[in-house]
């Protein structure tokens, strides 16, 4: 796997962002002023132009080059990451403090990391991308505010994120040990982890190593689960979100989720369930149980929150649980031997877009409603917003309706595709695998109940804004651009709710391209001729 000149040309958007961040740090050191906002927007525009040159995700084919893969999923997630960077730039545009350029530069590095993660086809690059998200995030959290709560949030996030990285690396080490390579999907003569798992030879010297893959699955799920704020790694989210600014909360709630989804789909879905490890059901039971736990904890705890960022933290946990439904569906379908993800992966991709739009929009609007000195924190501070700030109240209401899943908005279609994939999988297995069918019906019922619980606290926010008499008015000094960002997200939420077919189609296409086989490494048909594919490089002779 060489990093050739083509690989570098495929990294053009990331390189532009990296250059932009470097320029911003220098601008921050040498001259303050509005130049940094212009430089930031130019860098994002440049990255968007470079990304557009790779073609529309609607008709891209998979390309492998060095440690990179360019496919509809990678392009789609990179577009979402760029959009998030643009929106958060607007959310943090009004920063009269001396470290404004550092905020924008660090944010740009985070976005660059998310884009790398989206297209990584190699364990090392995947880890590098995840760290490029984590490490600047620590700095972002520190830049946000200078008080005890902020320091506590930064330290908490720092240590727990380190723990999650360590668990993930340990999982990667197991995968490397089992397969003898760090490439995820192989091409041509190069065998990847996925081929090693698909073509495993029960007579080979290393065959007993495959029994270790459940351990690898658990460790990887823990590592990416932290990014999704999934149980049992959800406990950091409320404290950290509460302790930082609204714009930073948006970054924390959206970017790691994107990275977690990319990691789960690229690695957990492709590598683990396609194996004949000792216990096939384990691969889907683990995400299924985590999904149930995560969404229930998130939704129930959100009910009695008084702080808006704490509430959104529990909401973000609950949505992490919904996302895991897609993983469970995909894993169940893949581990039953078909090379289809049964709409689970596509549902996850669509849902993460829907969630990202609503979450970053609402935190952008909240950033507008606060001021650099006083962030808006309590739910009660939103009272009577419909009269004092009608536009901001309307955008917030749209995001809350979308997160609830009210039909004409994007959130409804997100929940429909995810819950629908669970129901469909259950119906397809009704006769062949009754226990799996029952598990997934149960999952869909729990998910629907959770959506109903979630409605209670989202609608409470709308109630406070529209039906309570105003207290002290919100400062609304976060800068006009932040409101523009919020309104832009609201339009996108409405647009993708009106015309969901295009985007759902794209995410299903991304799923198809993700799980399909490159022709050169097509596996033997299941049941017969196993092991006729590429020979596995045994671990003990691998150099």
């Amino acid at each position, binding site marked *: 796997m060489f990093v050739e000149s083509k690989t570098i040309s495929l990294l053009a958007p990331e390189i532009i962002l990296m250059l932009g961040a*470097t320029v911003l740090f220098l601008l*921050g050191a040498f001259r303050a002023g509005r130049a940094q906002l212009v430089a930031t927007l130019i860098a994002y525009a440049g990255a968007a132009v470079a990304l557009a040159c790779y073609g529309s995700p609607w008709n891209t084919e998979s390309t492998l080059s060095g440690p990179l893969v360019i496919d509809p999923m990678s392009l789609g997630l990179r577009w979402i990451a760029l959009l998030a960077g643009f929106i958060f730039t607007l959310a943090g545009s009004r920063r009269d403090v001396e470290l404004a350029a550092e905020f924008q530069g660090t944010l740009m590095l985070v976005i660059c990391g998310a884009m790398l993660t989206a297209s990584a086809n190699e364990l090392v690059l995947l880890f590098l991308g995840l760290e490029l998200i984590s490490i600047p995030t620590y700095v972002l959290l520190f830049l946000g505010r200078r008080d005890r709560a902020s320091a506590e949030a930064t330290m908490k996030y720092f240590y727990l994120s380190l723990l999650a990285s360590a668990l993930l690396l340990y999982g990667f080490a197991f995968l490397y040990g089992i397969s003898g390579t760090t490439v995820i999907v192989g091409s041509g003569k190069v065998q990847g982890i996925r081929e090693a798992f698909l073509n495993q030879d029960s007579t080979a010297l290393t065959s007993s*190593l495959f029994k270790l893959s459940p351990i690898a699955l658990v460790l990887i799920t823990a590592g990416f689960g932290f990014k999704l704020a999934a149980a049992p790694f959800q406990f950091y989210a409320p404290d950290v979100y509460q302790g930082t600014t609204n714009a930073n909360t948006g970054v924390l709630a959206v970017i790691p989720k994107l990275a977690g989804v990319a990691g789960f789909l690229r690695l957990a879905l492709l590598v683990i369930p396609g194996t004949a490890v000792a216990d096939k059901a384990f691969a889907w039971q683990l995400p299924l149980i985590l999904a149930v736990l995560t969404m229930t904890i998130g939704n129930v705890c959100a009910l009695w929150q008084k702080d808006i960022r704490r509430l959104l933290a529990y909401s973000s946990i609950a949505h992490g649980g919904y996302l895991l439904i897609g993983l469970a569906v995909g894993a169940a379908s893949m581990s039953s031997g078909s090379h289809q993800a049964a709409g689970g992966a596509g549902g996850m991709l669509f849902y993460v877009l829907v969630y990202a739009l609503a979450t970053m929009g609402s935190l952008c609007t909240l950033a507008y409603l606060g001021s650099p000195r006083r962030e808006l924190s309590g739910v009660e501070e939103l009272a009577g917003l419909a009269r004092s700030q009608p536009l901001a109240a309307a955008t917030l209401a749209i995001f809350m309706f979308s997160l609830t899943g009210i039909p004409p908005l994007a959130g409804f279609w997100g929940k429909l595709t995810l819950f629908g994939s669970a129901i469909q999988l259950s119906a397809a297995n009704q006769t062949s695998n009754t226990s799996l069918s029952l598990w997934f019906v149960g999952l869909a019922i729990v998910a629907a109940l959770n959506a109903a619980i979630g409605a209670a606290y989202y609608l409470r926010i709308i109630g406070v804004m529209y039906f309570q008499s105003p207290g002290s008015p919100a400062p609304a000094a976060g800068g006009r651009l932040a409101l523009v960002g919020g309104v832009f997200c609201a339009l996108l939420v409405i647009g993708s709710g009106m015309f969901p077919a295009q985007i759902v189609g794209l995410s299903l296409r991304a799923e198809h391209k993700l799980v399909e086989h490159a022709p050169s490494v097509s596996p033997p048909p299941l049941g017969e001729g196993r092991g006729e594919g590429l020979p596995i490089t045994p671990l003990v002779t691998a150099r």
Partner: protein
Amino acid sequence: MADSLLPILLFAACALALALGMLGVASLFGPKRQTAVKQMAYESGMDPIHDAHRKFDVRFHLVAIAFLLFDVELLFLYPWAVAGNATAGIDAAVAQATELGIGYSRGLVFIEVMVFVGLLAVGLVYAWKKGVFKWR
């Protein structure tokens, strides 16, 4: 499987036995003459002058980070310098890549290293401008 892991297990067992054995033999046969000087905390041969739980200047921290930056730079430049002139180094990799029809050359490797050095230089300029090296 078990055969291939046996050397590792043997190695681990030997290492453990050696470490425990040395500690055990030392505590069995070693002379034990404690003096006040020997009971003192060891601080690079100097007399410890005060409590260890003492605040020290945060400037040390910044300089330590800057040092780490260039330590890591050196760590990456050494392999590059060695591979540049070795038999199984960059030339061999370029030959292998050319055989596979992959666009890879010495120039590309050079540019990559220069980007790395350049980014670190920007870090130095930033730290300098922010006054990290001023010992106020």
